[in-house]
Every structure is written in C-alpha cells, then in structure tokens.
C-alpha cells in the first residue's frame, strides 16, 4: 500500500503528474491516494524530491 507522509509532503503535485493510474489527487492542503486504483508501480515514490512517499509491506493473511 502507498503510504503518504503528510508531514514531509510539500504539496508540489509532482507525483500527480506522473501517476499512470490517476490514483493521486492533491486536495485542499493534502495529497490523497485512491488505493483501489493504485498498482504500486513505485513511480511516484522514486520521484518525490523530499521522499514523502513510501511503501507499506503489510501482508494480508
């Protein structure tokens, strides 16, 4: 699952421009991810200039 560190995110919108699934949305002062359509392609994570995005490896049993 994509994890957004809201404290670190500077709301630049860069990741939104890169997401092939249109899963990301920069709302009023907050980045949101629609986990239903995110495919964890990692593009946004590898881009974020401040490293605000990450992966949660929790495995569903």
């Amino acid at each position, binding site marked *: 699952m994509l994890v957004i560190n809201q404290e670190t995110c500077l*709301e630049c919108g860069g990741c939104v421009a890169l997401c092939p699934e249109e899963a990301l949305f920069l709302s009023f002062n907050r980045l949101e991810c629609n986990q239903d359509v995110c495919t964890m392609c990692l593009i946004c994570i590898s881009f*974020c200039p401040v490293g605000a995005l990450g992966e949660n490896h929790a495995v569903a049993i």
Partner: protein
Amino acid sequence: MRSQYDAVVIGAGPAGSTAAYEIASAGFSVLLLEKHSRPGFPLSCAEAVSIGAVASLPEMREEWISTRIKRACLVGPNQCRITVNRKNAGYILDRPRFDFALAERARAAGADLVCNAIGRDLTRPDRLFASVDVLLESGETVPVEAKVFIAADGVESQIARTAGMTNLCNRDEVFAAAQYRVEEIDIESDVMTFYVGRKIAPGGYVWVFPKSDRSANIGIGITGKTLRGGDAVRMLNRFLRTWYPGGKIGSRSCGLVPTFQGTGTFRLHNILAVGDAARAIDSFSGAGIGHALSSGKHAGRAAAAYISGEITDIGELDSLYPGRYFDERLEELKLYARLRRAYLRFTDGDFNDIVYILRDYFDGRSADNIHVGTLIVHLIKTRPRLLKFIRYVL
C-alpha cells in the same frame, strides 16, 4: 460564483490569470478558479525571468522585482567558473506578489475569481465539454457550465488528463526539484549562479538566485532513471553544507519541472491547456513563467474569438491556439528539448571543457545579443569531440 459563464479558467497561476484577463477584457464572463486561499501562495519556483519573458506585460512594477540580474555565472565540476555580463538580463521576481497582481488584473477586467475551489471532472454530453464540477472547501460540489474551458492547473494538469489529453509526464525525463530560501549569507545581488556536474546534480543543475544581498533561492533539479525518492533534497543539503554552511534555511519547497512533450498537449475539443498544464516550458532550463504568460495570452484571445462567434467550428480554433503561440515559441520549445537530450549525456569532463571554452570566448566580451546557436558552433569548432552530441540537437 454563478452556474454559467462564457469561460471557466482552472488555476490562477500566471497562465490562468493571463487567459482570464484576455477573456474578461474582450467583454465575456469568466470564472477563474484557484485551489489555494490566494493566488501565488504557496509556491515552488526559483522566480527567475528574462526581460523577454515578461515583455508582453504592459508594465513591470517595482514591487514584483526582488533583484535585477546583470551577470550569469557557470561553475563546472572542478569548480572552474565563467561569469558573463549581460545588460538587463532579467529579474528574480517576488512571485507571490507577481501572481497575486496578475490575478487582480484579471479581476479588475471583470473575471470572477473564486479561491478555495478545485476544478475537477468535466462533463461531455456530446462533442464538446459542457460543465466542470467545482469542489468547494465545505465538501460540496457545484457544476458550472461554460462554452470554453482553460486548463491552467499547473504541473498536476489533472483537468486536461481526466478529460483525455495525453500529457502524463515521464519520470525519467522530468526534473525532480527541491529548493530552500537561504538567509544570512553574503551574496552578490546581480548575479545568478549555476553549478553543473554529474555528482553535484545528475541530469540537471544547482541554482543560486539572489533575493537580496543577504538571501537567495538555492535549489536543485535532477533527472534520471536511477533516482530515488528524497534524492533531490539530500543532494541540495550536501551542496549547502559545502558552499553555504552558515546559511539559515527559511522556507522549503519542491516540485516537478516538466519537459515539452510535443504539440498534442495544448487543445482537446473546447479545452485549451496553458502553461505547465500544457507542458509549455523551456525543457533545458526549466523556465516556464514566460511560456505561461504567452500561452495564457493566446489561449485567452482564442477563447474570446470562439465565444464571440468569430470562429464557429471548434476545429478552426487551432490556428489561433495553439497556432499563434506556436508561431512565436514552437521552434524554441523544440530546440531546448533537443539541447536537453544532449546535456543529459555530458560527462564531468565535457562540462569542464565547456566552461573553459566559454571562458576564453567571453573574455572581455559581453553576452548581449548572443544566440545559443552561435555558442554551439563555437564549442564544436573548438572541441570537435563535442560534435558527437550534435545528433541530439539536430
């Protein structure tokens, strides 16, 4: 905010505010939507413009200018440097004030500026788009109808993309950028400095743009397949530790600087994309303010011509927008995109060579009226080895 306008402009950056101003000045009703509580805030930009970039504005107010640039300095990987003089090269703006004033200009001309409002989905009952859903801070969504929509929502460019325009950016091509306002440093207020090299800023450069003689916008833009999240800010921190260890970090920002993606990202039916949303930018340096102003101007005028009935078929709009804008800027957009492809292949040795050659070339010579083509020819003549890059430029 009404439920119907002649045009809706989404995003009150320089591109959107200019388009809205043109439409309102032609006597048509226009809604200018801005997500934030005021135009120009918050902002991630190094704020540099050339004199030419702002030449289309009727005035350049003193309060929009932080510093006036008269020299540019390039520092190579081995710290060799070259400084060139150019009379009236440009400005470092106070962009919050500049953006706010452009939005005010649109409002004074009759545009309806609504802040804290996000343009979201567009509906398209037949061939043309008919309305946009406006999301308000309360959570409420209101549809607004119009004849033309201007997508000026910056780099996110969500409006154009959800409508079906193919403007998705490629991570391997764009700049990942980070910037600090650094205070309490000693700096010459009329020189902008660029640091290049694969170690210092892979696929990009570090900029030091003076905001006064005691403060600067210091930032980095990097590109490449191997980048990882957080690299930009890590490299910026490293640069500051080396070059400005005593500097005090004020505001922090980051962003994506897009690259020109060809002519397909400017219009889709009755949606005109402008500025960053259209990827209208100098791909080499990342300068987008001038392109935002000129694409916004031409899109606004084209929208007004369509609303007035002067153009009846939407397809004919092309000759006005992006046509008129391309007449002015397409060659330049293409040239800088090609230069960037060559730049991405330079080694640190090439960078050092280039600095030395330019240093000899500009010895005692001013950079007024020098064309980039002239410089390229000179570089290749002096160092034929650089010819191998020419295929990326042609």
